[in-house]
């Protein structure tokens, strides 16, 4: 078996002698006999690294890596440049803890400072934290920021159901009230219904754009409404769309949150991802999590350090607004290096995603029986209805190496096209769907 302990039996003997006990077992005399195990754990004996590698290699082979992924719904298949893992997996980054000691952690602290700067660029907001667990928990944490005496939040329109589910869990836990104002028949926020739902007990409103169906919402109108009614506006954004669309700040957001996975982080069957949280200066003391700030050292150098710590659990304990301690620092680093590598070409990632999505939508809805469900402007996701059984269609697509749209019901699919698939790949998928459609 493989071990990562360097001790020889002579080492152990000498060390025990210095400690002054006879055997290793004697170190555990505080553990009462009644709870002390006499049998080994029911886990197989250890194996060599070679065997473990092969075991997991064959497990990995039982997962199907799909060539053409035309599905998003919260996890997006963008191109990950090989330079990215080569940099972020450097073990100085990977094996460090939270940067508590600034003198030997400037690399990590500066990378977080760059991350915060990037997130503020994307959103136009004043302040970003160093990340939270994922997009869904970023939404949920925003509730704690908005609510003080008033404890009701509104979820307006088609917000990703995963986010809604997590917000609701946090609300039940913390005794908040959630009111969902469903989208209108056009798939977008029903502004009249939203206006009626905002009463004196409401602390804030969540709205997502592009929304769950990919539609670009009229966030300016939401911002105008929340500002007029003096409630907080939590803007849920997609970082790729943020390269092109008007910023959350320009639309009047108080807090902008999002899922950072599209920024160079692999889909990884669901995690780890990256919770982005940004806000206006007025709310900075209510921001959860780590924040890095610039300062100077005693030699006159510019330096970075964890700051505004009095907000956090290790100081404020039960009075803290959040208990977050470990965050997604390495994912934030990944997003940072991704944006640095892509630079202005990142704008092209967004342009190609939106263009290819429209290219695919046009060809798909030209097939007999397929219609675009919502007619509004969309970014890189859209919903189709069709006469086909979508489960069967997706099975066929899978055979051809394509993950089709997410099945919202048996006739409805939520598609996503990023910059990654080539036009040839998209044309091939269209050809297969045409075949299936013509056989029905």
């Amino acid at each position: 078996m493989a071990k990562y302990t360097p001790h020889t039996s002579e080492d152990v003997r000498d060390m025990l002698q210095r400690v002054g006990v006879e055997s290793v077992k004697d170190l555990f005399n505080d553990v009462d006999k009644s709870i002390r195990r006499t049998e080994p754990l029911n886990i197989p004996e250890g194996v060599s690294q070679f065997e473990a590698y092969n075991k997991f290699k064959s497990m990995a082979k039982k997962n199907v890596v799909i060539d053409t992924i035309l599905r998003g719904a919260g996890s997006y298949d963008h191109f990950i440049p090989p330079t990215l893992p080569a940099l972020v997996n450097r073990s100085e980054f990977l094996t460090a803890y939270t940067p508590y000691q600034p003198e030997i952690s400037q690399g990590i602290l500066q990378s977080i400072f760059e991350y915060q700067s990037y997130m503020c660029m994307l959103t136009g907001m004043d302040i970003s934290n160093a990340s939270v667990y994922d997009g869904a928990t970023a939404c949920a944490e925003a509730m704690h920021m908005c609510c003080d005496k008033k404890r009701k939040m509104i979820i307006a329109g088609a917000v990703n159901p995963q986010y809604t589910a997590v917000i609701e869990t946090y609300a039940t836990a913390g005794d908040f009230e959630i009111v969902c104002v469903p989208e209108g028949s056009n798939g977008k926020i029903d502004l009249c219904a939203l206006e009626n739902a905002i009463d004196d007990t409401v602390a804030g409103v969540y709205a997502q754009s592009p929304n769950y169906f990919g539609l670009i919402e009229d966030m300016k109108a939401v911002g105008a409404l929340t500002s007029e009614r003096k409630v907080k506006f939590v803007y849920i954004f997609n970082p790729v769309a943020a390269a092109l669309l008007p910023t959350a700040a320009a639309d009047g957001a108080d807090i902008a949150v999002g899922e950072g996975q599209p920024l160079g982080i692999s889909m990884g069957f669901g995690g780890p991802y990256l919770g982005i949280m940004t806000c206006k200066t007025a709310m900075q003391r209510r921001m959860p999590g780590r924040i890095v700030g610039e300062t100077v050292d005693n030699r006159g150098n510019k330096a970075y350090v964890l700051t505004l710590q009095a907000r956090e659990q290790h100081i404020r304990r039960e009075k803290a607004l959040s208990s977050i301690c470990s965050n997604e620092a390495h994912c934030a680093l990944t997003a940072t290096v991704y944006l640095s590598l892509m630079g202005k070409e990142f704008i092209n990632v967004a342009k190609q995603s939106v263009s290819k999505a429209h290219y695919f939508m046009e060809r798909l809805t030209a097939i007999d029986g397929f219609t675009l469900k919502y007619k509004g402007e969309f970014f890189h996701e859209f919903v189709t209805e069709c006469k086909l059984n979508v489960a069967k269609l997706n099975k066929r697509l899978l055979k051809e190496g394509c993950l089709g749209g997410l099945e919202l019901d048996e006739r409805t699919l939520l598609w996503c096209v990023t910059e990654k698939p080539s036009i040839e790949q998209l044309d091939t998928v269209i050809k297969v769907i045409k075949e299936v459609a013509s056989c029905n």
Partner: protein
Amino acid sequence: MKFLKTHEWIDVNGKKAKVGVSDYAQEQLGDIVFVNLPEIGTEVVIGKAYTDIESVKAVSEVFAGCSGKVVAVNEELLDAPEKINEAPYDSWIAEIEFTKLQDDLMDEAEYKSYVESQQ
């Protein structure tokens, strides 16, 4: 100027009182980095915390020596929280229009011996 056991001062002037924290309190906290000024109109209650003050590695609640309503706050502290370290007795946090004063407030001499007894 009167004092509370929780190291705040209160300076009564007619029906209003200015409140702040004592020299001992600021010394214990160290470099103050933020004063969380209460909103005007906040109701304060004798013995209850109405705001807090942050240093780099600590946060300290500020308790009320009277019941009433906040009518003014010292906005100067927003940009210069260090004023509390430099001149704690000139750096009032809030002005309160009070309905009731705490009974057992200490005068300066009493407070001084109280602080000494605590050390």
